[in-house]
């Protein structure tokens, strides 16, 4: 058979592609449960971190998450921490390249942020991708929620230490991502203020666990 002929080449490519893709799908199938479990743990860990609870091992995450009252369908979470009630909500918002998903936690009187955690993003690594870094996320810890919108804007240095001004230091060189985070967070504040959402969150804390 002519190895350089068109028919041989087409058949060869077809067989080789089929074999390798088949092996890949087998591998994918074999690990899919583990990957889903990992994603679930990452999501639970994000909710806990946003609420200010640090966790280490996957077991610890699942154990701590057991104490969180959750309405998984609505992505709403509530938990008593040190005598105060903390609400959290999962968000999905538009970033520069794709969706940014994460969790924002606030106190039950909506007076301040408890924390913000990113679950997934497709922002440019090293630029917009820095929303994943500690200094950016930590700025939301204990930041007062202003009556108006918050502002994410580039300031000098790393982070804005003033917890009362409703200003968060953005990322230099990633203005679009900073703008996205600003509108996502403002949108979330509005959502928390929605009477229906607030009602659902109150129901969670008074025992109605979905």
């Amino acid at each position, binding site marked *: 058979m002519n*190895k*350089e002929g068109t028919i*041989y*080449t087409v058949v*060869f*490519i077809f067989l*080789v*592609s089929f074999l*390798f893709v088949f*092996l*890949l799908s087998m*591998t*994918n199938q074999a*690990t899919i449960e*583990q*990957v889903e479990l*990992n*994603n679930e*743990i*990452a999501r639970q860990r994000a909710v806990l971190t946003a609420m200010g609870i640090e966790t280490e091992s996957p077991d610890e995450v699942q154990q701590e998450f057991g104490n969180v009252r959750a309405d998984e369908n609505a992505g709403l979470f509530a938990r008593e921490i040190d005598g105060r009630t903390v609400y959290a909500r999962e968000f999905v918002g538009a970033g520069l390249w794709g969706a940014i998903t994460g969790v924002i936690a606030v106190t039950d009187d909506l007076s301040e942020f408890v924390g913000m955690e990113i679950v997934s993003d497709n922002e440019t*690594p*090293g630029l917009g*991708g820095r929303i994943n870094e500690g200094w950016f996320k930590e700025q939301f810890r204990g930041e007062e929620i202003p009556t108006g919108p918050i502002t994410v804007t580039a300031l000098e240095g790393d982070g804005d230490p003033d917890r009362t001004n409703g200003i968060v230091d953005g990322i230099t060189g990633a203005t679009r991502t900073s703008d996205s985070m600003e509108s996502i967070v403002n949108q979330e504040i509005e959502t928390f203020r929605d009477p229906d959402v607030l009602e659902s969150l109150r129901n969670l804390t008074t025992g109605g666990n979905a």
Partner: protein
Amino acid sequence: MSDIDTRPGAILKNNLWTSNPIFMQVLGICSALAVTNLLTNTAIMAIGVTFVTGLSSLTVSLIKKWIPRKVRMIVQTLIIAFYVIIVDIALKAYLPEISRSLGPYVGLIITNCIIMGRAEAFAQSNDPLPSLWDGLTSGAGYMGVLMVIAVFRELLGFGTLFGYQILPANFVPWTIMVMPPSAFFLLGIVIWVGKSIMNREGAPA
């Protein structure tokens, strides 16, 4: 190919030193710059590259006599992509944290020129076992240089090695070491030092 010495010792010395993929051939630079600010990430990335280079060279060599010449590079790319996706899936399933911090760079192993370079320059014309060894040692040559860069970047950028605090707590981290530009400087220094030693030995540089 008669001009390549295929004895295991010669391949090892060649890939680790005399034609080291990073500082002699200057291949695979983008990942060398991107992932080297933490030793753990660097080690995992380099092990991934070594695994892919070794096994893709082995596979190319095993099936080389059935590959039509005009599509050989497409087939090599397919084989490389196959192993890279295996690495990606394995990391996602068993090392999710590292998978997350390496982000898109695992997928980009596919574009690492070292892998295709070895498949084309060595595996295509040599037996399977020397090809496997050639791939693994090329990966090791890549790993060696990356680890050296990562030691400096993590130590000076975070004051840690493999996440363990090494420098005293009052050490002020050099922020530049965490960022990609520092890898350019360090890589330049590594190439400079490597070539200087080589010139002193009188080896052809």
